[in-house]
């Protein structure tokens, strides 16, 4: 095996089992005698609970327990504030079950545990609650005004956080600007909508005192720590397993959702396994959402189009609670200048409580909003100065010789400095222009227009800070029986193909096939140091940890094999799952090297005989394991990034707008993408394509429709319009590979990349298509037919 697998288009190890229906998602795991739970949820956005009577529910046949806030002892508490930040005043987090007040439609009030879900839901509907409805303000801007109805009575003006960051001298830049462009943009609320809703099951073993929790989470180690703390158990007595997980996109990285505490609690109390499988409506009204931001962005420019200053003041909707701190808004504020030099930046945000589902990161995490703001502003600047949209961007890009390019004063969501580390921004723009046929487009557009068809070209660039710390680890072990290589890390996979890309990293070092590398993650009993899968960080942080580990194991293997083959270590090479004497046919299989590296008393097979005490190769002049040595071919190493590494890309599209029907068709979509060295281009493309599809949803269709009373009017997949295959055009993805200088593999993250620029591209394209009809601007996504209709009406069309 001499072919390098890093960089190769390897098919995924995990696919056969998923394709045969042999995946094991939480609700697929058989648990003897399992009980099912259902929640009573608030039908009001804001209300006081005057009376709560669960007697009828408790009497209902088949009901095992009903829990209200009075029945959960120490768990009747505000849940943890996961990411504290000094700019928050009195940050509010949810209680597992409402006490006294409810703050959004869908908030959990009681949990029923019964013999099956059907019975549990019946009983939940028998719980009597008297509510005293309270007024609500759903408008983000009005919610901040004095006298607006509060989401939390003790938080005045619904102001959850207020934060300013400055880079350079923005006031001075605006003072010497020759031109100022100012626009207001808005992105509406959406949701991750993973195909598998959230899910959890728990079993308490009273004999061993061990709690096992199967949680469809992105963060089992973190959940383990939290549960151990809440239940006052040693961490080793709590095992959290994230088995196969059906998509996450950020929604599954919060802890705790109420069920994540209450299901383990019920399992411990009732002595039976308990599960909660969220249904789709509950996913819409109970699990985290994101996106609503309103930005007022100003660009201070010279007549040449060079942007010398940026001022962005925005409102961020955090929903009813702020468990994830200001992460989303902070990522937005530090991504606001995109790939542009813009040396002077003032960015200020206010996070606002609204009586809606809490906001935590959803794929993109503030970046789509920041991209929408800066890219719409760049288009506007180009228009006002009479410059080409490509040209104005080209003039402002950070150039290759300027890297690393720091934005002094801006701290990213990891608390570390924002420094763009590498890229070829102008080259990417050129590739996008070529792939789009931008040079020929004006003629094509004019020709179409003559036929009564409205074509437009949309364009947007983005950057993405990826690979956040604090750290991840890797454990690599060559198995003595089969010679297969076992790899552990502290992450989970929700479809990203970790089991294949991590296998590729290891395969190259140890000379084995990727399919002979078994990656086990998502189980705290397998590996329990690390953080979670989020923020496009797996390949960067775990990937490099595993790479470092594999190099250590490689060295150990070469040394052990050299001893066995009685040659110099430099004469040994690893390939085809064996150690070979270079240029000869002498070899020893990796399994035998692993076995021999473990001094044995008992022989369990032929290879093992060679490692026992009276075997010819045994040492007889000291301890079988020398001081400081460890048995086996095994190692654990860690990688902690010094800062985030910044990926980027350029997206463009040709869209066609029908001014009669007010519909938008994407005729062509182009993505130029650079995530540094690619471990597996097929998987990278999969991530990008999926992200773009989600971006198209956010650009044209997906909007959570909260009514003035706080009810969500489209809490189903029938009414919340997620794209089907019929809505997604063919997409052309081209790669650049500018290595990151910040890690040994030279990789950058890719998970969120695809979705970031799409809203800006679509709005840019639709605006361009309708330019012939008059001066129309689109600064609000999703860009719906009604918005197009309203805009056309305003210009008298």
């Amino acid at each position, binding site marked *: 095996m001499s072919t390098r697998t890093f960089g190769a288009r390897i098919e995924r190890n995990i696919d056969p089992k998923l394709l045969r*229906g042999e995946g094991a998602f939480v609700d697929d795991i058989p648990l003897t005698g399992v009980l099912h739970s259902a929640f009573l949820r608030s039908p009001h956005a804001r209300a006081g609970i005057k009376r709560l009577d669960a007697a009828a529910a408790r009497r209902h046949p*088949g009901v095992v327990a009903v829990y209200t806030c009075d029945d959960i002892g120490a768990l009747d508490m505000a849940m943890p504030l996961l990411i504290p930040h000094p700019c928050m005043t009195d940050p509010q987090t949810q209680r597992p079950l409402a006490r006294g007040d409810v703050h959004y439609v869908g908030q959990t009030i009681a949990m029923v545990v019964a013999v099956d879900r059907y019975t549990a839901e019946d009983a939940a509907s028998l719980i009597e609650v008297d509510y005293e409805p309270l007024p609500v303000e759903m408008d983000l801007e009005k919610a901040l005004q004095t006298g607006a109805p509060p989401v939390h009575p003790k938080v005045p003006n619904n102001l959850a956080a207020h934060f300013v960051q400055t880079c350079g001298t923005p006031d001075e830049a605006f003072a010497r600007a020759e031109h100022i462009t100012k626009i207001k943009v808005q992105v509406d609320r959406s949701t991750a909508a993973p195909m598998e809703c959230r899910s959890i099951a728990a079993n308490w073993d009273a004999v061993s005192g061990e709690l096992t929790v199967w949680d469809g989470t992105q963060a089992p180690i973190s959940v383990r720590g939290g549960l151990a703390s809440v239940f006052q158990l040693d961490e080793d007595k709590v095992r959290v397993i994230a088995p196969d997980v059906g998509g996450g996109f950020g929604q599954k990285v919060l802890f705790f959702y109420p069920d994540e505490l209450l299901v383990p609690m019920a399992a411990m109390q009732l002595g039976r396994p308990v599960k909660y499988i969220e249904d789709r409506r509950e996913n819409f009204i109970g699990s985290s959402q994101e996106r609503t931001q309103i930005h007022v962005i100003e660009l201070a420019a010279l007549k040449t189009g060079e942007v010398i200053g940026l001022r962005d003041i925005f409102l961020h909707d955090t929903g009813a609670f702020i468990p994830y701190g200001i992460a989303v808004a902070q990522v937005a504020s530090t991504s606001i200048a995109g790939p542009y030099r813009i040396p002077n930046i003032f960015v200020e945000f206010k996070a606002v409580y609204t009586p809606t589902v809490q906001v935590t990161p959803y794929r993109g995490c503030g970046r789509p909003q920041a991209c929408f703001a800066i890219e719409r502003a760049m288009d506007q600047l180009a228009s006002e100065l009479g410059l080409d949209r490509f040209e104005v961007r080209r003039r402002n890009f950070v150039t290759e010789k300027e890297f690393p390019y720091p934005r002094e004063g801006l701290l990213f969501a990891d608390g570390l400095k924002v420094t763009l580390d590498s890229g070829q921004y102008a080259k990417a723009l050129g590739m996008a222009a070529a792939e789009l046929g931008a040079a020929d487009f004006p003629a094509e557009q004019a020709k179409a227009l003559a036929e009564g068809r409205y074509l437009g070209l949309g364009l947007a660039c983005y950057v993405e800070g990826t690979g956040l710390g604090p750290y991840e680890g890797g454990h690599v072990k060559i198995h003595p029986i089969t010679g297969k290589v076992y790899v552990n890390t502290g992450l989970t996979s929700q479809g990203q193909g970790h089991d294949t890309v991590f296998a590729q990293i290891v395969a190259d070092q140890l000379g084995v096939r990727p399919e002979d590398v078994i990656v086990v993650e998502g189980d705290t009993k397998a590996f329990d140091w690390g953080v979670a899968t989020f923020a496009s960080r797996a390949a960067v942080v775990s990937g490099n940890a595993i790479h470092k580990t594999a190099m250590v194991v490689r060295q150990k293997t070469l040394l052990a094999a050299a001893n066995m083959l009685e040659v110099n270590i430099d004469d040994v090479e690893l390939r085809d799952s064996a150690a070979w004497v270079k240029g000869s046919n002498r070899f020893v299989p990796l399994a035998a090297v692993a076995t021999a590296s473990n001094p044995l008393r008992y022989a369990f097979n032929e290879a093992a005989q060679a490692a026992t005490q009276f075997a010819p190769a045994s040492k007889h002049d000291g301890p079988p394991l020398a001081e400081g040595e460890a048995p086996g071919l095994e190692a654990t190493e860690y990688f902690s990034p010094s800062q985030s590494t910044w990926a980027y890309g350029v997206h463009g599209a040709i869209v066609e707008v029908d001014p009669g029907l007010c519909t938008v068709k994407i005729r062509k979509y182009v993505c130029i993408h650079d995530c540094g060295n690619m471990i597996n281009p097929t998987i990278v493309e999969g991530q990008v394509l999926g992200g773009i599809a989600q971006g198209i949803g956010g650009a044209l269709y997906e909007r959570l429709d909260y009514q003035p009373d706080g009810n969500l009017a489209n809490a189903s997949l029938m009414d919340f319009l997620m794209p089907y295959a019929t809505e997604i055009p063919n997409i052309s993805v081209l790669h650049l590979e500018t290595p990151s200088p910040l890690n040994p593999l030279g990789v950058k993250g890719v998970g969120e990349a695809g979705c970031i620029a799409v809203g800006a591209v679509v709005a840019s394209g639709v605006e361009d298509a309708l330019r012939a009809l008059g001066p129309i601007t689109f600064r609000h996504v999703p860009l719906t037919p009604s918005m197009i209709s309203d805009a056309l009406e305003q210009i008298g069309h």
Partner: protein
Amino acid sequence: MKRMAKPSIPERSSDPRIDVSLTVNGETIHRAVSVRMLLSDFLRHELGLTGTHVGCEHGVCGCCTVLIDGKAGRSCLTLAVQANGTEIRTIESVAEADGTLHPIQQAFKECHALQCGYCTPGMVMNILARFEEPYPLDLSDAGVRDMLSGNLCRCTGYINIIAAVRRAAELLGRT
């Protein structure tokens, strides 16, 4: 926290039950089922065929698609009692007994047409139903998209699934 005395917990709900007989993946099944149990729950929790997934329980996402008498159907919109006398096929019946993938599954693997794999069984069953219909396949861009238009996927962006349908047609000599 108060630890409850172990309660006496009934085995099952007091829902009325009806005897049903049906064929599932070639095996004849006789069971007494709750009259309101969904076919998806029956397959998953009574028969242990957990390859059929449940994504919305309102018939939109297609994750729960199985073949009912040869036609693709939503098992989340079908009651188990309605399946009495029918022949059901689930994802577990598609690969060969030794695990060898069906050409549709093989095509999905080759084309990276799945990521988390949650929607995949429903996709495969839907495509299988269409491939088994005695009509020519429309493998045009619009035709394949139409074929997939009853199944949601949140990971892949569909492009690779469209490629997989064409690749499966190739493998099965249907081009």
